[in-house]
């Protein structure tokens, strides 16, 4: 018997069920093992096939997922990936995303358990995105692409089934968000006039990375009229300057995803990515007077993030949404059209990036590098 056989036949590792998709889905919903959409039953054969793209020990936890602090072993993650509908070659991206979002600064406990409507946004960079035929263009955050849809869903199913982010018990979101079903895309590197996210963060251009954000769903930045980069940036800064998002109160690294047409105009007018961030820092500001008296007192004047900076400030005083120019993340995403997106975060979270690496630490050039020998 192989290691995998032994693990899958260990007491409690599995159970027998009738070969009836409807009854299996009823069971998974009743047990809080489902997001409510139909799942693909994680049979031993399917889980084994998923694990062909995993070079790690199958029972060794990649991470512990809060709030339950469940052990995210490759075996369990493979079951989630099967349930989500992943093809086996997607599995390395799922596994690295889980590894990233369990790094302390991401604050997966807060992201999963909060009343705030945040979720785990996964952005993929590098050659693996194309290898997996991920969508970075039209409708990149929407339906229609199996890799985008199922990688994001597998990550969320791991939060639910391993992490215990069960609504009302481990996930206390007031509303939640449709983005909690899945929220995953590849950056549109081909139409990015600046360096792609992973290169900006210091990874080699031919590295493949996953970056996770504790993010809300996106808010649109509609600008069909501006003909200059400054005009588009002014509209973007106006969208960023909102009172409802947590980023006003925290040092929480929001994401701005520029559509390729907006990005081209901004870059044509001489703005580097650093210039864009500086502009958004300087202009994406909320006047103190836009807040209620209670919020001014409790969330600004007495809020630890600000120290005493606004203790005597009047209603015209501007509060930056980004707490420094480097506090924002900027990517290029989507297809043709005059839209960009502001993606606020939970606030008490920082994005984390992982390069796809084999178990021995070497950079993976292809998902094929993860095939079990």
């Amino acid at each position, binding site marked *: 018997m192989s290691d995998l056989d032994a693990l899958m036949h260990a007491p409690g590792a599995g159970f027998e069920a009738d070969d009836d998709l409807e009854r299996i889905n009823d069971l998974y919903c009743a047990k809080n093992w489902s997001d409510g959409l139909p799942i693909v039953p994680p049979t031993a054969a399917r889980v084994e096939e998923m694990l062909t793209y995993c070079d790690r020990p199958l029972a060794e936890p990649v991470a512990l997922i809060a709030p*339950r602090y469940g052990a995210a072993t490759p075996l369990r993650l493979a079951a989630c990936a099967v349930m989500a509908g992943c093809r086996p070659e997607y599995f390395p991206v799922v596994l690295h995303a889980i590894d990233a979002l369990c790094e302390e600064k991401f604050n997966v406990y807060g992201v999963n358990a909060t009343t705030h409507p945040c979720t785990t946004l996964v952005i993929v960079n590098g050659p693996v995105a194309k290898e997996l035929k991920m969508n970075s263009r039209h409708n990149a955050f929407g339906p229609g692409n199996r890799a985008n849809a199922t990688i994001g869903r597998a990550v969320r199913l791991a939060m639910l089934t391993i992490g215990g982010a069960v609504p009302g018990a481990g996930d206390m979101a007031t509303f939640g968000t449709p983005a909690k079903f899945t929220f995953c895309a590849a950056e549109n590197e081909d139409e990015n006039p600046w360096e792609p996210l992973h290169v900006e963060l210091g990874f080699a251009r031919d590295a493949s990375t996953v970056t996770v954000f504790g993010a809300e769903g996106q808010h649109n930045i509609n600008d069909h009229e501006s003909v200059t980069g400054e005009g588009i940036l002014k509209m973007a800064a106006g969208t960023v300057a909102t009172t409802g998002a947590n980023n006003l109160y925290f040092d929480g690294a929001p994401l701005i995803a520029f559509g390729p047409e907006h990005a081209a105009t901004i870059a044509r007018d001489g703005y580097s990515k650093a210039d864009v961030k500086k502009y958004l820092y300087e202009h994406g500001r909320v006047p103190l007077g836009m807040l209620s008296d209670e919020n001014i007192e409790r969330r600004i004047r007495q809020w630890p993030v600000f120290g005493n900076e606004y203790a005597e400030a009047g209603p015209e005083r501007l509060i930056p949404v980004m707490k420094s120019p480097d506090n924002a993340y900027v990517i290029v995403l989507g297809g043709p059209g005059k839209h960009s997106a502001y993606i606020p975060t939970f606030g008490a979270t920082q994005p984390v990036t992982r390069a796809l690496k084999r178990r021995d630490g070497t950079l993976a050039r292809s998902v094929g590098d993860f095939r079990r020998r």
Partner: protein
Amino acid sequence: MCELRKRGLVTAVIYSGPFLKLGRNQARTFGVPELPLLEITHPLGGISLGDVKARAAQAAPQFADLVRKHLR
């Protein structure tokens, strides 16, 4: 909190109604399922300072009872 409880100190978590399940689950996760959970009226956010004081007044006698039991 759970570590302090394991060391024998008087500890408790104060929760408002809808957070009972989360509190129980967390106590179980951290190996102290018997961790006392002291209920106050929901919500705690978005209320006046007077109402915050009223919540504290709900919690204080519950915690005092815990201390008394511990000292017996």
